[in-house]
């Protein structure tokens, strides 16, 4: 299926939940790199970590992975 990840259209396999998708990114040989710590926004709404396994990922979803920013 196609989703938008940090503003870029990408094609990924079908995943039931955000958790499944993030686990696949952590596997060796994954084309996409996932940062060590990040916050997640799905279609403009932040998703708490505890909800990753309850949040489904669907065709056309807009996903943002935000790395915490220290700079000031």
């Amino acid at each position: 299926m196609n989703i938008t990840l940090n503003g870029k259209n990408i094609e990924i396999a079908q995943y039931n939940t955000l958790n499944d998708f993030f686990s696949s990114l952590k596997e060796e040989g994954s084309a996409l790199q996932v940062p060590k710590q990040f916050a997640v926004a799905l279609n403009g709404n932040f998703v708490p970590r505890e909800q990753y396994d309850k949040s489904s990922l669907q065709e056309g979803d807009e996903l943002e992975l935000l790395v915490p920013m220290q700079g000031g």
Partner: protein
Amino acid sequence: MNDEQLLRYSRHILLPEIDIVGQQKLLASHVAIVGLGGLGSPVAMYLAAAGVGQLSLFDFDVVELSNLQRQIAHRFSSIGKAKVSSAAATIRDLNADVQVHEINASLSAESFAEHFAAVDLVLDCTDRFSSRFAINQACVKTKKPWVSASAIAMDGQLLAFDPAQEDSPCYACLYDDDGDEGRRCAEEGVLSPLLGVIGSMQALMALRSLLEGPLAVGEMKRFDARDLNWQSLRLPKKADCSVCSV
């Protein structure tokens, strides 16, 4: 206000959103600015120019040559001086109406809370997570509204919090305090005027809060300096947050 003040703030007083009453409100306000670096510089200078009556400046660093590319409150002649002293000198030179308090120390959440008790608003312009989490705890404890901002490389973000509002999230609803270092300017660099964009937005949110009361909470504003786009992301309060839901 005396005649000189009426003239100095005339362009504010002309605004129906401010008027004389609003300007008097600003002159009677007290804002804490934590971090006098890239963000704290424009924030402090705009609030001073706008006539915010009292500014408490918190920092424990000294001015270095590599700061001057973006930290516009400091001068070449200030290298080696405490950032709070350097910024205070700039503020006093801008506007003698402003009373400046210099706190040249690294503080714990408890010490921040003691200082914040006296202020109307807190602005987080720091460059490290330990400070952001300490400010978050202190603001939740004292129920003070605050605006957190950060900028790095080509990205900036702003978040307003108001622990006095029941549905307001806190910083710990967004990120876990796990000691992770995140992205830092010393490693990734930062585009100089990006600090002006984000810092000016933070100063603008501060004035709106002082003039009109409660900030709109639960929304992160992100700015991308590559395509010049702003984006809003909604941040709900976390039901079991260890800081704000206990």
